[in-house]
């Protein structure tokens, strides 16, 4: 019989086992890249550091708020005693000038605050942005018009300026919460736009029509057809906005409107250390390096994820 097909000779690349979906392919592709491995390691390191901050600092023997007057020279404006900003067996990364607080403990706890804020804000941004973007893209019409106007409006806000203003007038509130909320407030339109664009393109894919012809309702289509299709770019975009969030948190803390003392955060540490950049360079370099490495790692990771997961990016 002429219509009998030959067994499917898989046209897919031979290296991939049959039955592997787009996610598996993406994972295999990611595993191939060294940059991904290195940045994952860095990110994991800092996340672990943040999670295990109390443990780590108790290992080092200092709490982040504990003064050590013996480690600084009070007559020289509290410059740390000893070379390299007071790095010693006692203080692994040296001490903060003036107060003599242990830098290791502060950096580790600072990671906790910085990453907590950055990641929570990212989560808010991504959730809100995805919800708004999908709604606007899928339902279109008036919903889209309203949401798009809202996005435009939010994007027209001079966000950093506004954030600083908001943070500086707020007094009796949980700073971490407020900071997260404020950062999140201005981030969502970015995600929403990406998601909306992607949703619009997916909505006109024939498989969405197929699902509708098959009787699926909007909710089912959104969750089974659109959302998974949006997930790739969203994950990539998410990874790429994390560094922005970390930087924003740092910038706000740097400008002195961040977390409340004595809670350390990297931005606040850098802000304070700037004054010592020539008298105690290590104090300045250590939190800066942490910030730099984290941002770098997330950026590299995000780049790789975008290459692999976002079909629109120019990968050949």
């Amino acid at each position, binding site marked *: 019989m002429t219509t009998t097909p030959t067994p499917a000779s898989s046209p897919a690349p031979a290296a991939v086992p049959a039955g592997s979906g787009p996610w598996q392919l993406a994972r295999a592709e990611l595993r191939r890249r060294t940059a991904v491995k290195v940045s994952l390691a860095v990110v994991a390191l800092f996340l672990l550091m943040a999670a295990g901050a109390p443990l780590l600092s108790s290992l080092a023997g200092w709490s982040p708020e504990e003064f050590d007057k013996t480690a600084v020279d009070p007559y020289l404006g509290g410059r740390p005693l000893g070379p390299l900003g007071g790095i010693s067996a006692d203080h692994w990364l040296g001490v903060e000038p003036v107060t003599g607080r242990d830098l290791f403990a502060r950096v580790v706890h600072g990671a906790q605050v910085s990453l907590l804020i950055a990641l929570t804000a990212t989560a808010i941004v991504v959730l809100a942005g995805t919800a708004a973007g999908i709604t606007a893209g899928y339902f279109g019409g008036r919903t889209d018009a309203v949401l798009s106007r809202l996005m435009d409006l939010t994007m027209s806000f001079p966000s950093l300026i506004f954030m*600083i203003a908001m943070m500086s*007038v707020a007094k009796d509130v949980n700073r971490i919460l407020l900071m997260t909320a404020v950062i999140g407030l201005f981030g969502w339109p970015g995600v929403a736009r990406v998601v909306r664009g992607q949703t619009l393109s997916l909505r006109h894919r024939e498989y969405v029509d197929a699902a509708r012809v098959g009787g699926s309702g909007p909710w089912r289509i959104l969750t089974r057809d659109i959302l998974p299709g949006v997930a790739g770019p969203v994950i990539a975009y998410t990874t790429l906005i994390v560094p922005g969030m970390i930087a924003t948190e740092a910038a706000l803390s740097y400008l002195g409107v961040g977390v409340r003392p004595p809670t350390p955060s990297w931005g606040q540490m850098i802000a304070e250390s700037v004054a010592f950049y020539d008298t105690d360079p290590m104090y300045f370099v250590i939190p800066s390096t942490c910030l730099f490495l984290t941002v770098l790692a997330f950026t590299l990771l995000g780049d790789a994820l975008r290459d692999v997961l976002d079909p629109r990016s120019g990968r050949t």
Partner: protein
Amino acid sequence: MTLYLGRRLLAVAGVLVAIAAVTFTVFYVLPSDPAAAACGKSCSTDRLEAIRAHMGLDRPLWRQFADFVTGIFTGRTMGSGQYALHCAFPCLGYSYENSEAVWDLLMDRLPVSASLALGAAVLWLALGLSAGVTAALRKDSLTDRALMVGAVAAASLPVYFTSMMLIYGLIRTAGLLPYPQYVPLGDDPLHWASNLLLPWLALAVLYAAMYARQSRSSMIETMAEPYIRTARAKGLPRRTVVVKHGLRAGMTPILTLFGMDLGGLLAGAVITESIFGLPGIGRLFYGALSTGDQPVILGVTLLAAAFIVVANLAVDLLYAVVDPRVRY
């Protein structure tokens, strides 16, 4: 086209009023008492009330807001008797702190922020785009990799870090440049530039890195377009293909980015200005924050929003010039 422009301008005004309203409300909801701040360290309740009434803070929020908005368009008179002040057309009120018209303060600081932003923009466009295009044309080569590693790293550096390193390297250690101090362009162009060089560099490093990455991917995408293949098939020299056919299309997406960035920066690069001590709008804003000078805060926020919105509008209009497919 005119219709479109009219509609867009109307939208711009709407957005600005909305932003003003939100900013206004935020400051109302999260109160810091400018009257108390102005009153000083020893302040009787009676005097505080008098000051509050004088500042108009005793009236309902919507009245204050309405006055503010109408003031922008028609100007308004503040105070009474011998001290009555007429605040002319784009009236953004008077600074609580030093009683100068907010508009004048902004216009006074604008040249500094504009010098900073525009100079940095020239620098970062030159650096970023050339790096990005070079990398794109030599995709996957060693040059490409080196440039992109550099760009990712530079984009990850916090501005304050770059700034401090520049200050340390070029001022403290090498003594090559003076501590930045704003000299108006009209006074002495050379001094203007030499004083701003460091802040320009500090800002440009970050943006150049971002632009290099962006322009590389945009250029790679463009160079893979079929019309580039057509251009090559016509036997055009490589230069023509790259510059005439590739660059123009490849750089269009950068325009959007540039509009947003420049718009945001014109209204003050808060961190850069404060690190280098440049008396720009960002610094004005930061100062106003620490003294609770609400008219100035509101003014800067509005100005910044206006720049962003106008820059976006400009970009959209520019698109029509660059891309003949866009018609209004």
